[in-house]
C-alpha cells in the first residue's frame, strides 16, 4: 500500500468520510486531464483516484489504517470517529457536538494466543437473598463452571457482614459442574459490599499473571452502608491492575447509581437481573468475550480543551454503560476482530471564529496486549473540527443518530426519576408520558413503553414507582442503546 493516502488528498488521518469526499472532488476538479493538461497533473490524478478508492470504502480504509499502524510499529488497533456535524458553526452561542468513537481491531483470533481467564464470583448471601435469588445465583455459578475452559481459573467468594472464600482460585475441572460447595451456600446477615470486594480482589490478585484476564462479578440485592467511598477506591485500584468489575443487581433494593459508578471505574458494567435466563445469558456473554481478548486494560487518557467541555460519555458497545467523565476512562477489553464504541457529547464555547480548528479530544489510549512484546502499546486519538460560517446542511451518520435517539430516551427516564425523587410528580409524569409515547412507536420497545405508561399513571396519582419497575425502566432504556444483532458496518 502506498505511503500516505490521506496526505495525497491533503487530509489528516482522522478525516471523516465527508471530508474525504470533498477533498477528492476538489482535487479531481483541479487535476482532471480535461482541465489540466500537464503530465504531472495526470500522475497526481491517478494518485488521488487510488487514494479515494481505498479511503471512501469503510473496510478498505480500516485495513489501510491497520496496515499503516503495523508498518510504523504501532499495535494493529485503530480509532475512528463519526461526528454529528461536519464542521462547527460560527455562532455567538454555545453549541453541542456528538462523536461516535470506535476502537477497532481486525486481527483474527488464533487458538494458541488466546488468554486464560480468571473469574471470581462475589456473592451477596445476606438474608434477603434467600430462596429464589440465591437459587438463581447458584445456577449462575454452575453456568460459569460450564462456560469457562479447562485452563481458566475460577473462584467464589460469599459475603454478608464478613466475607469467606467458598472456592479458592482453582483451575476449572469437569467435576465442578456439580461442586457441592456451591450448593451448600447459605443465606444470613447483612450486606457489606466492601468485605466482598476486598476478598474477591485479593483472590484475583493471587492468580496474577501477565496472560490472564481477571474479572470480578458482584451479585447483590442490597444497599451497602457507609463503605461506598472505600468501595470506589478499591474499584479504582482494581482498574489500575486491569481487573474488571461487573455487577448484577437483584430486585429493587440495590443502589444502581453506586454500582454504575463502581463498575464504570474499572471498565465493567452493571445490570438488573430479572430472570435466570437473563443471568445465564450474561455469564455466557461475559465468558465468551473474556475468552477472545486481544487487548486488555484499555485506558483513555483525556487531555482537556479550553473550548470543548466533555459533558457525557457512554460506552454503547459491547455493553451499554455510562463512563465517569474524568481525566481517564477505563474502556475494558478489546476482543480479537471486534470493536468498542463510545459516544461522546461535547459542549462548545460560544463565539468561535471562522476557519478556527477546535480540539474536542486530545487523548492517548493505552492498553496491554499479551501477544505483543513491545512495551509501548499506545495510540494517539485526536478529534478536531473546523469552524465554518456557511454550513452545508448534511445529514448526521445514521448510527450516531440512532445512538443519540436512544440516549435521549434514557435521559428522559433519568429526568423523571430525579423529579419523582424530589417530589415533583407533575414533571415526572409528563416526562414518563413523553418517554412512553416514543417507546410505543417501535415494536422492540412496545412492552417497555406499556410499563412506562403504567408507571406514569401511578406517579400521577401520587403512588410513586412500583418496586423494580423503576430499575427495569432504567436498564431497559439503557439496553436500547445496544445495536441489536445489527452489523456494525457503516457507509
Amino acid at each position, binding site marked *: 500500500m502506498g505511503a500516505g493516502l490521506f496526505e495525497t488528498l491533503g487530509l489528516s488521518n482522522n478525516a471523516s468520510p465527508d471530508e474525504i469526499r470533498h477533498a477528492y472532488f476538489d482535487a479531481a476538479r483541479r487535476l482532471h486531464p480535461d482541465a489540466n493538461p500537464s503530465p504531472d497533473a495526470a500522475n497526481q490524478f491517478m494518485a488521488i483516484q487510488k487514494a479515494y478508492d481505498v479511503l471512501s470504502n469503510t473496510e478498505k480504509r480500516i485495513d489501510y489504517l491497520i496496515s499503516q499502524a503495523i508498518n510504523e510499529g504501532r499495535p494493529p488497533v485503530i480509532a475512528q470517529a463519526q461526528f*454529528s*456535524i461536519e464542521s462547527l*458553526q460560527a*455562532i455567538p*452561542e*454555545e*453549541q*453541542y*457536538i*456528538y462523536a461516535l468513537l470506535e476502537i477497532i481491531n481486525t486481527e483474527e483470533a488464533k487458538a494458541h494466543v488466546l488468554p486464560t481467564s480468571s473469574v471470581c464470583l462475589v456473592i451477596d448471601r445476606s438474608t434477603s437473598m434467600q430462596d429464589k435469588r440465591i437459587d438463581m445465583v447458584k445456577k449462575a455459578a454452575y453456568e460459569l463452571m460450564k462456560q469457562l475452559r479447562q485452563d481458566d481459573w475460577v473462584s467464589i467468594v460469599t459475603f454478608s457482614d464478613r466475607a469467606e472464600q467458598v472456592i479458592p482460585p482453582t483451575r476449572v475441572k469437569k467435576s465442578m459442574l456439580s461442586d457441592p460447595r456451591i450448593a451448600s451456600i447459605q443465606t444470613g446477615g447483612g450486606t457489606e459490599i466492601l468485605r466482598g470486594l476486598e476478598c474477591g480482589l485479593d483472590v484475583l490478585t493471587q492468580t496474577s499473571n501477565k496472560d490472564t484476564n481477571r474479572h470480578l462479578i458482584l451479585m447483590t440485592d442490597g444497599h451497602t452502608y457507609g463503605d461506598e467511598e472505600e468501595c470506589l477506591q478499591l474499584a479504582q485500584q482494581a482498574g489500575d491492575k486491569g481487573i474488571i468489575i461487573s455487577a448484577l443487581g437483584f430486585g429493587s433494593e440495590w443502589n444502581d447509581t453506586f454500582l454504575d459508578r463502581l463498575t464504570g471505574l474499572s471498565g465493567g458494567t452493571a445490570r438488573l437481573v430479572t430472570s435466570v435466563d437473563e443471568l445465564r445469558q450474561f455469564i455466557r456473554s461475559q465468558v465468551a468475550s473474556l475468552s477472545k481478548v486481544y487487548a486488555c486494560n484499555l485506558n483513555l487518557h483525556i487531555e482537556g480543551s479550553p473550548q470543548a467541555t466533555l459533558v457525557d460519555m457512554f460506552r454503547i458497545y459491547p455493553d451499554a454503560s455510562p463512563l465517569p467523565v474524568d481525566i481517564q476512562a477505563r474502556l475494558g477489553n478489546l476482543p480479537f476482530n471486534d470493536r468498542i464504541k463510545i459516544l461522546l457529547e461535547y*459542549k*462548545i464555547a460560544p463565539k468561535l471564529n471562522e476557519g478556527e480548528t477546535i480540539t474536542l479530544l486530545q487523548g492517548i489510549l493505552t492498553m496491554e496486549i499479551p501477544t505483543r512484546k513491545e512495551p509501548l502499546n499506545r495510540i494517539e486519538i485526536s478529534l478536531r473540527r473546523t469552524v465554518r460560517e456557511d454550513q452545508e446542511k448534511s*445529514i*448526521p451518520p445514521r448510527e450516531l*443518530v440512532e445512538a*443519540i*435517539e436512544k440516549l*435521549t*430516551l434514557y*435521559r*428522559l427516564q433519568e*429526568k423523571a426519576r430525579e423529579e419523582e425523587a424530589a417530589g415533583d410528580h407533575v414533571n415526572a*409524569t409528563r*416526562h414518563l*408520558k*413523553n*418517554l*412512553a*409515547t*416514543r417507546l*410505543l*412507536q*417501535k*415494536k422492540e420497545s*412496545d412492552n417497555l413503553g406499556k410499563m412506562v*405508561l403504567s408507571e*406514569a*399513571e401511578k406517579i*400521577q396519582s401520587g403512588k410513586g414507582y412500583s418496586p423494580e419497575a423503576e430499575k427495569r425502566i432504567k436498564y431497559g432504556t439503557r439496553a436500547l442503546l445496544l445495536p441489536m444483532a445489527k452489523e456494525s458496518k457503516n457507509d
Partner: protein
Amino acid sequence: MIKCPNCHHKERNGTLFCSECGAEIFNVIPDGVSEVVLEFIETGKKLRLKENREYTIGRMGKTQALIPDVDLSQYGAFQKGVSRLHAIIKTYPGKCMIIDLDSANGTKINGERIAAYVDTPLKNGDTINLGSFKILLHISDQHVTEKLCPV
C-alpha cells in the same frame, strides 16, 4: 437556540433530539403553506393538523394517563373499535405518514391493512380506517377556508 417542533422546548444548537419529549429536531423543515386536514367521514367534522408535528390518535379511557393528541372518544370511537393509542400521524410540509401502534383492530389505508410500527406514507384523498372509524385525508397547498375545529 433551536425550538423543538413537537413541544416547543428550546435546545442548544447541535442537539439532535429534544430533551423534553424525545422528538427528532435536527431535520426540522420550516413551516410552509401546505395543509393537512383530517375529515371524519360520518360526522363531516374536519380537523386541521400543523406541519412538522406528530399526533397520537386514539380515544381517552377513564383511567388512562396518556391522552392522545387527537381524541376520537366523542365520535363513537369505542364502538368503532379505535384503540386508546391507535396510530400516530406525522406531518411534514405537503406530506404525511401514519404509523399503526399495533392497535387491536388495525389501520387500513384505502381498504388495505398496514403493518404495525411501520411508517406508511399518505397522500391526498386517502381514506384511513382506524378499526371501522373512517377518516378522509386532505393534503393541499392552498389554505382551506372552511371552518375547522381546533386541535
